[in-house]
């Protein structure tokens, strides 16, 4: 049996056959089983995806999709791997969207509004239209983190932008041509590298390791036979959960 056939039979294309929905992929109509995600519906319709597909789990932002529904003027967005199909959906993917990424040395920048404005001066062009927030498939308050950036509040930018998956839908719709997700990343790195207190226990542990404090213990464990290891393992004292 060929590999490919096995996979089709496997759980990925696990669709309950029964009721179908009619969807339109870049204008072509397809009848696909209800209950599929947009991504799986495209595959069901015969598309072998190379672009516009990634982790298939909602973390990588590769499958940003825009769609409209029959009889509805609104433009909807979603991740193809996380959005269920609906009857009458007209959809297209945005497999790539150009977004300039400035080059900087994070260690040498100072964590303030100056750094953000130097690399992303366009953030001051924000029209407060809130379109970025409306299109964010993660439901982030994108416009609010742009506002926080203008005020130099890096902590707030970091908090509001942390769950960003860099799908680029905000960038594609911004009338001020802001590259939101790259700016958010710079702000978070500045906040993490310069404004968050370092873990002192971590620093201490590095010094201990460098002094060779654990060498003997590890050497003995590496040489221990299976029986000895099993005995030590069974004797471990388990720390209570939090």
């Amino acid at each position, binding site marked *: 049996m060929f590999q490919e056939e096995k996979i089709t039979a496997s759980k990925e*294309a696990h669709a309950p056959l029964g009721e179908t929905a009619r969807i339109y992929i870049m204008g072509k109509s397809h009848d696909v089983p209800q*209950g599929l995600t947009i991504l799986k519906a495209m595959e069901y319709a015969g598309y072998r995806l190379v672009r516009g597909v990634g982790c298939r789990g909602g973390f990588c932002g590769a499958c940003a999709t825009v769609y409209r529904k029959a009889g509805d003027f609104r433009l909807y967005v979603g991740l193809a791997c996380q959005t269920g199909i609906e009857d009458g959906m007209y959809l297209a993917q945005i497999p790539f969207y150009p977004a300039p990424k400035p080059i900087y040395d994070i260690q040498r920048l100072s964590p303030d509004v100056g750094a953000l404005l130097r690399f992303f001066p366009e953030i001051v062009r924000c029209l407060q239209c809130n379109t970025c927030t409306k299109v964010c498939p993660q439901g982030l308050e994108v416009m609010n983190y742009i506002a926080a950036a203008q005020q130099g509040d890096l902590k707030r930018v970091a908090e509001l932008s942390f769950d960003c998956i860099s799908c680029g839908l905000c960038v594609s719709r911004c009338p001020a041509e802001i590259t939101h997700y790259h700016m958010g990343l710079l702000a978070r790195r500045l906040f993490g590298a310069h404004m968050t207190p370092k873990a002192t226990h971590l620093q201490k542990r590095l010094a201990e390791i460098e002094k060779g404090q654990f060498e003997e*213990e590890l050497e003995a464990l590496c040489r221990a036979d299976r029986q000895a290891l099993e005995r030590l393992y069974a004797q471990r004292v388990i720390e209570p959960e939090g």
Partner: protein
Amino acid sequence: MSYPDSMRASVAQVERTRPERLKRRPFARLTLEEKTSLLQRFHPDYKPEGFRHLSAGPNRGQKVPHELADLLEARSRIDPDAFELNKAVDHDVDVLVIGAGGAGTSAALIAHSQGAKVLMVTKLRWGDANTMMAQGGIQAADRPEDSLGRHYLDVMGGGGFVNTPELVRALVTDAPFVVKWLEDLGALFDKQPDGGMIEVHGGGTSIRRMHSCGDYTGMEFMRVVRDEARNQGIVCLEFTPVVDLLLDDSGQCAGAILCDLDTKEYSLVRARCTILASGGMGRLHCQGFPTTNHYGATADGVIIAYRAGVPMVFMDTVQYHPTGVAFPEQLFGQLVTEKVRGLGAHLVNQEGERFIYELETRDAVSAAIIRECGERRKGLVTPTGVLGVWLDTSMIDMLWGEGTTRKALPAMVRQFGRYGIDITKEPILQYPTQHYQNGGLMINEHGETPLPNLFAAGEVSGGVHGRNRLMGNSLLDIFVFGRRAARRAALRAKEVRLGPLSLDHVRAYNRQVEEAGISNGRVSPMILPDYTPTSHRIRRVGGVAVG
């Protein structure tokens, strides 16, 4: 309420037993004997029909999953006679890094910092990797109560005491350095106000050692190291997978053949050292399981290195993550992080009863769920015929206060919220899903494979985790061995002298496959899976570029 009527009675059972369970009475842990017996009876690794013995290559006679054997017992995707290898190469570099996830990107950064000329290549986009999807955390023994030896022992016990000792030693020793490196690069760890790391348990840990960044831990690391590598000017060719390695006339690794997925053109890289950081094999769907893995996880690195003579270790063991989504259908097989159980959520059957201590190692919890749904018949069946047990996520807020779930597991709240399931108030249905390739290419503690000038780091390699990896040791593994391989490769690249390039190893392997009587027409590596229905596939008569 988001669940269909057929599932609600069982949800009510979960609610009924919840008050008693919130008292958090300890559930008996498995003894080593009980665990062994549970695994042997119910873990998919112990199902002989899931495996076969290889008929070609360095591991001939050893068993691997059928799905991997299908790709190992296959001819190369390329025709070795179609290439003029020694006229001109397209790229001539010190270090070629194959794969652009966490292992590849950290390797590229370190090799670059050592002065090496680096080229990265990757199948999809930079960062399209399982690293991006890792939610739960990274282990490092950095609390004063913890020690490297304790971490070592937990890793060995989790792996069945068969892990390669010097690899485990490297893993636990470098761990605090890796966390420090990420902290300095600006990764936003979950911290106390004084900067101390917030650390929790994971399955199989004896002490709280799990560092995290919400439930976007891997994404945060990936974003940060990728940004740093872009700042350093490191070149990454996207949508350009490797289809085979190149050796030189003396049999050293000397680079690779690339294929551009947009233009379908092949190109040649000559590299003094090559680091394979191409990830695992989730998308092979061993024994028909769904997977948590990235679209590109098709074992390409294992395939091309094996063909070039690199042996594999522990390739007969696959990690099934205990908690993959069983409902809703749209999220089927996707990961529910172990952090949920680390935060105290119980696993219960359709009657609301616990059946395993939730933080046993993953192999044991998966086996227990399979037993509960199979032999014990206490799994719940969904409307589409999928079996599962409940993970009582609503306990988290009840134990730690309202808002805890939303703060600690934002990705999950969002993911289920899209389908009308509020995980802060309702349990979610789970069944094991293929998650990790425990084994892989043989390496030493410097990331070197037995093939000169070829290194491997991360999931593509084997030995670090023995027969079962612990949570939080994969995000660790990729950075520890990505950095180690890069340091050694950058150094070695200075002295390597390459002869004329050759694909004789591909010819030789093709001959072996033929001599073993395998004439199935299969080619490998797979590059990308094909999820289109057969009804579509049989109509594609013009040939396809990948798959």
